[in-house]
């Protein structure tokens, strides 16, 4: 092994990551006037998330939480190998519809984000974007060991170890892989939390926004999106 030590290490590459599409550019308008377009400012909103306080009347909030719990719309985004388990969930055998669970194709209309297993850094970026695009009462269901401690990829250079460092997680479903029944159990746990008013992680995310952002940006080197993706 002493030989290995002699091998000189290639140094870290000094790289800058700039998306050419989002670089500032000079543009000529139709009347010949020249101006600078900065896509990051002009094309994306730079507002930060705000904390939405629950309804001040407890009974109303309880009712609304009940409705939220009974109408869980899932963002259909298969982030890892566990998404193979989501399909059976909707089949006659497990039929998650009876619990008010329904897949939606767009984050705008979804409340539950299922992170189904390992997350590569690359995927994490998309996960963050989609998570932030979901409207406020939103819940994250983390599926499988990988989201808890990295699972079998604990020493991989490109999969994260702990999901809750990057986005708030409401419920974990452990296992590698968890079966659909476990997922259903996860949904029911989530319902309990929502009904109890404990699933306010969207607000937590807004409160601890800087901390989450610092963690995200630590590993996503080519951060080429606004701080909060509306």
């Amino acid at each position, binding site marked *: 092994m002493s030989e290995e030590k002699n091998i000189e290490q290639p140094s870290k590459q000094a790289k800058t990551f700039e998306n050419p599409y989002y670089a500032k550019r000079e543009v000529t308008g139709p009347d010949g006037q020249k101006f600078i377009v900065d896509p990051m400012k002009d094309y994306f909103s730079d507002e930060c998330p705000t904390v939405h306080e629950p309804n001040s009347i407890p009974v109303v909030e309880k009712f609304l939480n009940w409705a939220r719990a009974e109408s869980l719309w899932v963002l259909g985004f298969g982030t890892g190998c566990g998404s193979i388990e989501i399909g059976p969930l909707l089949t006659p055998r497990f039929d998650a519809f009876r619990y008010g669970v329904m897949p939606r*194709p767009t984050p705008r*209309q979804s409340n539950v984000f299922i992170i189904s297993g390992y997350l590569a850094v690359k995927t994490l970026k998309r996960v963050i974007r989609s998570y932030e695009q979901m409207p406020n009462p939103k819940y994250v269901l983390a599926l499988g060991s990988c989201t808890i401690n990295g699972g079998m990829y604990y020493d991989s250079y490109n999969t994260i170890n702990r999901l809750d460092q990057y986005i708030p997680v409401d419920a974990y479903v452990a296992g590698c892989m968890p079966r659909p029944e476990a997922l259903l159990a996860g949904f029911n746990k989530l319902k309990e939390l929502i009904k109890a008013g404990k699933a306010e992680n969207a607000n937590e995310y807004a409160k601890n926004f800087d901390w989450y952002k610092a963690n995200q940006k630590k590993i996503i080197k080519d951060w080429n999106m606004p701080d909060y993706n509306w």
Partner: protein
Amino acid sequence: MDFELKRLGFTLLGLLIVLNWGLLMGAAMRKIGARVGKRYGIPWFQPWINLVKNYAIRTSLSHGIMFYLGPVFRLSGGIGLFLFMPMIIGSQLWLNYSFQGDLVLIMYFQFFGMLGMALGAGEGGHPYSAIGISRGLSQFTTIELPLTLAIISIAIQYDTLSIIEIVQAQQGGFMNWTVFTNPVATIAAMLSLLGVLSHSPFNLVIAPNENPIGPPTEYHGSFLGVLQTNRAILHVVEAALFMNLFFGGATNWFEFFAKTFLIYFWSVFVGVVFPRFRIEQSVSWFLKVPLVIGVLAVILYM
């Protein structure tokens, strides 16, 4: 004036009934679909929960004024159709505001919501919205053709375009219904109905698999709630239109529920059996079979 107030009250009550009936009918159809697939299906009150939840969503994003007006147009379209549609024949109070316009008004008011929604979704700037709308509009043009022919046919038959008069002409036993007196027009119209209610096989507009949800891709929260409300109302009103034109109308609410349910069931029945058409397929399809039947319906009365 007193009567006017009374009418307003009854109309609003009718709207409430129609909304809830629409939601219930939607749930029932989902349930039927589930049972066909040997699933248990959603609870019957699921649509109400979804509605409450959507209205209770806290975040609200706006892409601009037209984005916000889109759902307003859409719901106005639905409610407007309700207002101009006589619901229960036999009572002046359930005729809503149908004295302001006839069948032609109903035909063209359908577009009010569509157009507004298209514009609202357009301002969302999402490519899928535009694709969905372009498909929707393409399909809708051809859906309307057999329907127009069917309506011309029954207008010739009853010598009027007034829905109330058409319904009154069908009273006195089910053999007087248009479906028996003018079956060809009814067939053409019922084929159009499949497209109007945009269930499978004519649901490419919102086809979730290839074109996530189509026009409302960017809509969420209360905007989506408004759209769902409209959908519930619209489906009942469309069914009521066909009920009035072809199935003798309704003289009381029970008849209304039964008939609208069965008419709506027709589209679901087809929808659970047939797979989805591509847009040029559905356009060509409407211009083949239903068009020929529609032309036949007119020729028979020429």
